[in-house]
Structures are given as C-alpha cells and as structure tokens.
C-alpha cells in the first residue's frame, strides 16, 4: 500500500512574543498582530511534519502533503513544510472557512483530505499553540471514522499498521491501530529539521494548490463561524491585578533575606 500522508499545519502568532506586545480587539473578538513579529508555523505542527518525514525516510517511500487553512499568508507555513521535505501543499483559503471552532475547522480539513484522495495517514500537532484546543486532529479522525492516537512521541508505519508512543506523563504507552488513521504529535518527538537553503529555494518554486469552500463542496452553514458548534462570546485580556510586591533592600543580600522572610510568613517555604 502506497503511503499517502497529510500533515495539517497552522499559522499562528509567534508564542515568543512578549506578553506586553499582546493585544486583542474585544469587539471583533480577534487578536491584533504584534507589530514587527512575523507569524510562524504552530510548533507542534512542524513536529508533525518531522514525524511524517521520519516515516518516509524509514520506509523509503510515501507522499507527504502539507495542508493548511488560512489566509494568503498561511502559504508561508506550507512552504516551510515543503522546505522541510514535504512533497505537495494545499491551502484552504476562503473567508467562509475562517474563524471556525475546531469542529468547523476539522470539517473543512476533512473535506480536503477526502478531495486529496487515497490518504491513509493524517498527522497533526497535538494542539495549535494559539487557541490551544487540541481538538482538531481527533475531530478529523471522528468525522472520517478512523482510529486515532493522540499526543505521541514517535510514529512508525509497517504493513498497514501505525504504531505510536503516547505521552502519558508518568509513562509512555505504545499503541497500534490499523491504517487509515490519524495521529497527533507532541514535542517529545524531538526537534523538527531545519530547512536548508537549497530546499527553501526549491520550495519557493513549488505551486501550492488553493481550494475554496465551494471546491470542498461545503455550504456556508457547514464552515467557519456558522459551522461552529461553539460560540465565542468574549475574548479579553484577563485583569491581572498587578499585585506584584517588590522586595526592598539596600543590597542583594538584604533583599534575599527579606524575600525569604516573606515566603516564610506566607508559609510557602
């Protein structure tokens, strides 16, 4: 069976952005991009691409398609995946598909996976590092009716079976499911490979296929905000009662003593 892998990737605001540069538009319920800080590929998704490449390297065959849902700029994260070594890119770019909850997003991605055709393994990051749901990968599996293994640190494929190690905190559990299947990947898998210049240049020349909701056969009520099962009621920056008590002292040593005393009084040490 030829291996045909789809990796779902998302473009996100860089999580290394300092909190002080973070803004939201409460009316629009949207995050305002931090000036001068370029969006990046969601870290766990880059690791999912790495997992796909490792599978392909080990088997010596397979096709990897990088799939993203987002505006024109999301082309960059697809190109990032292509530069890492993926073969093809598909971008779902249509206002009707945006601002959905993970269920609506999974509905669109699933339609695209079906349209790509003959896909037998879908890899996703364990969660997107912006909205942090951790739902989309498992929802894709459920919509497709495929088995899934979530939050894994290694993925291998042999003879129609995918084997992955789940990260359980106190243990790693090795789980096998038959293909086709969905696997979500965690950071424990290891660093994603860094694209080299010739690969970046080759990826830049590659065409990215672009599909709209209509191309996916999705009606407006199935996609984006209308297709969501959750209503985003409010998005806000929590009121941090800047309650930080700064420790006084003329010397570092005196400050250290004062802090230790405070922590002792608060029964924290």
């Amino acid at each position, binding site marked *: 069976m030829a291996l045909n892998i789809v990796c779902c990737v998302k473009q996100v605001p860089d*999580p*290394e952005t300092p909190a002080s540069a973070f803004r*939201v538009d409460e009316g629009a319920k949207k995050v305002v991009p931090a000036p001068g800080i370029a969006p990046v590929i969601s870290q766990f998704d880059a690791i999912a691409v790495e997992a796909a490449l490792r599978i392909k390297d080990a088997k010596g065959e397979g096709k990897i398609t990088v799939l993203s849902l987002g505006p024109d700029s999301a082309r960059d994260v697809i190109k990032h995946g292509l530069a890492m070594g993926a073969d093809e890119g598909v971008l779902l770019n249509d206002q009707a598909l945006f601002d959905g909850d993970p269920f609506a997003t999974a509905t669109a991605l699933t339609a695209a996976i079906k349209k790509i055709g003959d896909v037998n393994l879908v890899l996703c990051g364990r969660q997107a*590092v912006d909205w*942090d749901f951790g739902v989309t990968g498992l929802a894709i599996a459920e919509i497709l009716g495929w088995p899934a293994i979530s939050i894994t640190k290694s993925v291998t494929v042999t003879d129609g079976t995918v084997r992955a190690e789940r990260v359980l905190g106190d243990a790693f559990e090795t*789980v096998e499911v038959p293909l086709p299947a969905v696997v979500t990947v965690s950071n424990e898998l290891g660093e994603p490979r860094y694209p080299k210049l010739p690969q970046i240049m080759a990826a830049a020349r590659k065409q990215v296929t672009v599909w709209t909701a209509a191309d996916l056969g999705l009606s407006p009520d199935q996609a984006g905000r209308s297709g969501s099962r959750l209503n985003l009621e*409010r998005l806000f920056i929590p009121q941090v009662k800047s309650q930080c008590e700064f420790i006084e002292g003329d010397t*570092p040593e005196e400050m250290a003593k004062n802090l230790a005393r405070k922590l002792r009084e608060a029964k924290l*040490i």
Partner: protein
Amino acid sequence: MSGILVLAEHKNGELIGLSTEILGAARRLADQLGEKVVALSLGSGAGEAARKAITYGADSALTVENPALDEYSGDAWVAALLAAHKEVEPSIVLMGQTMVGRDLAPRYAVRAGTGVAMDCIDLSIEGGKLVMTRPVFGGNAHASYTSKTSPAVATVRAKSQEPLEPDPSRSGEVKAISVDVSSRSKVVGREEVKAEGIRLEDAKVVVSGGRGLGGPEGFEQLHQLAEVLGGAVGASRAVVDLGWVPVSLQVGLTGKVVTPDLYIAVGISGASQHVAGITGVKNVVAINKDKDADIFKISRYGAVVDWKPFMAAFLEECKRLKA
C-alpha cells in the same frame, strides 16, 4: 432526563483530586440550574468510585465495572460515555483536562454532535447557558464560549475549581450499565517514566531558570535551592534551545505545565511560551534585573536585582530557615 454528567476518574476506586474538584463545580452549576449531577466511573473499582462521587456532590452514578476499561482506550471509553449519555441525556458534560479527558472529550463531542471547550478555568451560568472560559494564546487572553449545540462539553483544568467537603451521609442510586468495549487500537507496550527526584509536574516548589542566568553554570545554584526547598528545577524554552539544560526541564507551551505552590523564576523574561506552563500558579516569585520584564506582571513577589549575589544569599537564608 437531563443533568450534568461528570466523568469521575479514579485509581482503584479512589477518585483523582481533579474529579472531586469537577464534582464540586458540577454541584454548584446544578443547584443554579435545578438539575441533577450524575457521575460516571469506569473500570475495576468503579462502584467504589461512584459512591465516593456521591459524597463529593453527585446525586447518582453510573458505572461500567469492566476490567477492559482499567486502562484508557479511546474507542472503549467513548462507547461507555455515549452509553451514559443515552441514559442521562445531559445538558452539560464535564471531565478533567487529564490525559484521558484530552483524548476522550473531542471524540465524544464529535460523536454526540456537539462542540467542546478544552482546559476551562471558569464555568458559570449566564441566561441559563453554561459559559466556559479558557486561557488562550499562552494565557495572554481568556476566551469565553457557549455551546450552540447540546450538551455543552468542557474539560476542566486542575485546581481551577474547589471540591466540596465529602459528606458520607449523602446517598444516591448507583447503576451499572454495560457497553461494547471493543477497540480498534491495541496497546502493545508500556514504559514507566523513571523519576529522578521529584517530578516537575508533582513538585510543590519549582525553581526555574532562564536566559538571564547567563550560562549553564547558573543552574547549579538553582539545583541547590530546589534541593533545600524540596522542589524541582525547571527552565524556559530559550535555555533549553541553547542546550544549557535538557528538554525534560522545559516549562511552557511546548514543555511541561506545572502547578506548584511556589514558582521561583530566575532570569526569566516571561514570554507567553513560558507563562503558558505556569498560568495555574498563584505564587510566582520573579528575580530579574529588568524591572519592566513581563514576568513581574504575573508575580506575587518580585526582586529587581542581579540574580547571582541575590541567589547565593537567598540559598543561605533558606538553608538557615529550613535547619
């Protein structure tokens, strides 16, 4: 029937702490809505767990006391949850943001034809609807959701809700249900994680270092302090990327989420990547030269100071206090 269905996770009949917290939250919501709380527990010891769930606030409980459910399996557990769903026809379903909840809640929500809000830190009722609030963007923002579909499904973060005092005099019906526990997945191996000292996730005190330490040597003092305080050492992603410490120490979005009573951040600026790992910590102490560092915004105590002489003196003082 309708009600609030709570997955009561347990180990050999002993409820996990988070399940007692969720039962407390469910009780408060149910009292506002005039609904019942139904606990569901699975696997060996489920009956014992169900009776405890009632003492912690449930009105009744469902059990599937099948050893095939002792270990988590997505297919089998979602079948059990759907069977309970059919019994209860819940308006709200709550479970913990545990390794089980992370995997089970999305599967269940899709099959039940509804949505799910993961990792909620606040649950309230507005206009008869459940409002589910969760941290997003590494905790920089909070998002509040309602569900357009029923039931409203949420997973709940540990220590975000208060449990009730268990009341052994409370009683309620415990009903066994049966489900098809077959699974497409097969567990073929398990490797325990060897704990060296206290696990970061379990530690009551975490002493974490960032780039401000200036080099890997700085961690030596942090280790000494952690030892004196009976805690564990953590690190920001920046210093893991620099290779100063192993990735196993990383606290943050792509590292570990920790919930100690005391978190001491030394030379850490407070990027959302890092803060995402400590949003549940009430007592953050920040030690940083830069008075404008973001970390102070989420700290209870701060010291604007050169870490080196400060930490040396702090270590000595802690040793003296602990002696």
